[in-house]
């Protein structure tokens, strides 16, 4: 059954979009990250213009993170103070990102930048995760209890000024760290249409040293507002948010997420992270292949301008 998307200006099968949303929801449920990094390339692959895919995906991320935040908030797993500081950076970053997006769109390089950024980001994250989970897996096999490490190590970054206390996260660090992190995630969110959870979550754990209990809730808190900001700015400046497309993805996600969390409950964390790493790397390789392969036709059309 086909449906015509008013902003993407083409008809597409409803079930394809629904399935894409469900797959993204499944990932969200399984790994606690939004499935944007998978859904956006897939949308582009099925022929949605990249600019519309990115902006509408940001709209979908809002729904994803509010439904996850509902639970986390009730369990008290949100470090509001940390979330607000991250958000400060996130708002700046996403606004800068949308400006960058608009400029790249004008000079005709947005598709390329989206593809290259996806490849770089997914391959680095995927490799990191893969090595980490392999290492944990083998270490645990050797020593089931595992050595008890330090709570967190201190690097140079901990000597930055403007230190703040984050009670819930049991941290005393410079506010520049979360602001900078939020900024970077904001840019990613604006250009790639991802929530950025799969970058933010590891960064909060390894870079900031936050306890894992509050990481998911806090990242969802920040992602919710950043995605809302991106949606708003994309709609206001580029007019590329397709709500019909987003709605179908959201409905798919609503169905997929609980299934994902049920699967996640049955699998050990290491296996889960390993699976995620393989998936992320798979998408990265596919995208890289697209960039390297000689295209069927070198020609494409930019935006049509009706002159007054």
């Amino acid at each position, binding site marked *: 059954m086909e*449906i*015509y998307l*008013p902003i993407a200006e*083409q008809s597409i099968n409803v079930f394809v979009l629904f399935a894409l949303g469900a797959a993204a929801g499944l990932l969200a449920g399984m790994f606690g990250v939004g499935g944007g990094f998978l859904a956006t390339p897939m949308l582009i692959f099925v022929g949605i213009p990249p600019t519309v895919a990115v902006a509408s995906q940001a709209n979908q991320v809002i729904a994803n993170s*509010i*439904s996850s935040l509902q639970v986390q908030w009730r369990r008290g797993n949100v470090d509001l103070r940390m979330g607000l500081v991250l958000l400060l950076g996130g708002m700046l970053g996403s606004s800068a990102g949308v400006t960058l997006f608009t400029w790249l769109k004008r000079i005709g390089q947005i598709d390329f930048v989206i593809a290259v950024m996806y490849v770089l980001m997914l391959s680095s994250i995927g490799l990191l995760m893969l090595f980490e989970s392999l290492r944990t897996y083998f270490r645990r096999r050797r020593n089931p209890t595992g050595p008890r490490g330090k709570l967190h190590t201190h690097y140079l970054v901990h000597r930055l000024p403007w230190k703040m206390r984050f009670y819930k996260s049991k941290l005393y660090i410079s506010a520049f760290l979360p602001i900078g992190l939020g900024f970077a995630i904001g840019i990613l969110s604006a250009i790639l249409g991802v929530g950025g959870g799969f970058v933010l979550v590891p960064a909060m754990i390894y870079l900031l040293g936050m306890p894992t209990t509050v990481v998911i809730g806090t990242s969802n808190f920040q992602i919710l507002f950043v995605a809302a900001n991106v*949606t708003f700015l994309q709609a206001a400046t580029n007019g590329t948010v397709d709500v019909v497309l987003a709605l179908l993805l959201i*409905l798919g996600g609503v169905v997929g997420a609980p299934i994902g969390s049920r699967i996640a409950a049955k699998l050990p964390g290491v296996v889960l992270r390993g699976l995620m790493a393989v998936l992320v790397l798979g998408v990265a390789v596919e995208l890289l292949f697209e960039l390297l392969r000689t295209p069927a036709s070198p020609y494409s059309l*930019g935006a049509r301008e009706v002159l007054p």
Partner: protein
Amino acid sequence: MRASFLEFLFKPPSPACGGGVGVLRRRRGRDARSPLPSPSVADYRATSPASGGGTNNKTINNKPRLGVVGIVAAFLLCLVATAAAAQRVERPGPALPGPSLGGPADSSVPPSVPSAPTVPELIVDLSQARVSITSAFQGESLLLFGMFDPPGEIVVVVQGPPARETVLRKERFLGLWLNTGRQSFDDVPAYYFIAASAPLQRLLARGAGGEILSLDDRLASIRPVRWRSAEELAKFRGGLVEVKRREDLYPAAFGQVTVQAGRLFRAELPFPSRLPEGVYDVRAYLLREGRIVAAVSRPLPVGKVGFNAQLAGWSRQEGTLYGIGAIVMALTVGWLGGAVMRRL
């Protein structure tokens, strides 16, 4: 029941409550405010066999379509309750051809026969007055039909609104394929289709008054925004045609105009799903010995209707409101969906 309630909700002033009645009422309304100054043309319209045939054609063509679309609409409604608003569009879709029975034909008939008000040499009508992009739009095929005074050959040219198109070319850069070349052209028709009742080359060989252009001739007249070598320009022009062909906006094959009984003709106008909006120009020519003896031109509006049109309009004009609406939609559906699914 449900569909009519939705219609009532979203479009109270619309008369499209039931096929026949709506059409009848609209026709009468049109006739009453018909701006035709010349009674002779009106008479012709009433008695013309072509217009009668057109009416028959239409009813036969549309009845099954209405049924299919109705079923699709009902199915969609049940499946995606939240997208019900979009569904409402399905109803006005098939109802729209109603006014097409005469509406724009009125305006097109007089110019077609400026010299002979009683016996026009060429009469043309379309199976629909407009192409309506509804939620179920997947491209459409319109029927152009008419009558001419033999002898002669018929050529039909359909052009989309002209605009500036930018052709991008990927080139290899450090092993990666990157859009490095770009060339803009002005006055590029969004859509171009040409059909003829005899091999076009033969018809156009004699010049055809210089007015009828094959796709190649038409594209020779698009203006490059920035000048480069003729060779490069030709490459970009080729690229433009390639992309447009791929999207079926420049249907590659010349269409066939079928002539029946020596004086009735018909042609299928294929419109793909990725159809740019705007007012298209449909022209029919009657050629005798390579000269144009009569020409009929009529506008064919192509546009989104109903919910689609509203959304696109908001997105374009009220970007900030649209953005806020999109956020509220996502928050509501995400919140409710999350809450409901957790209960299950």
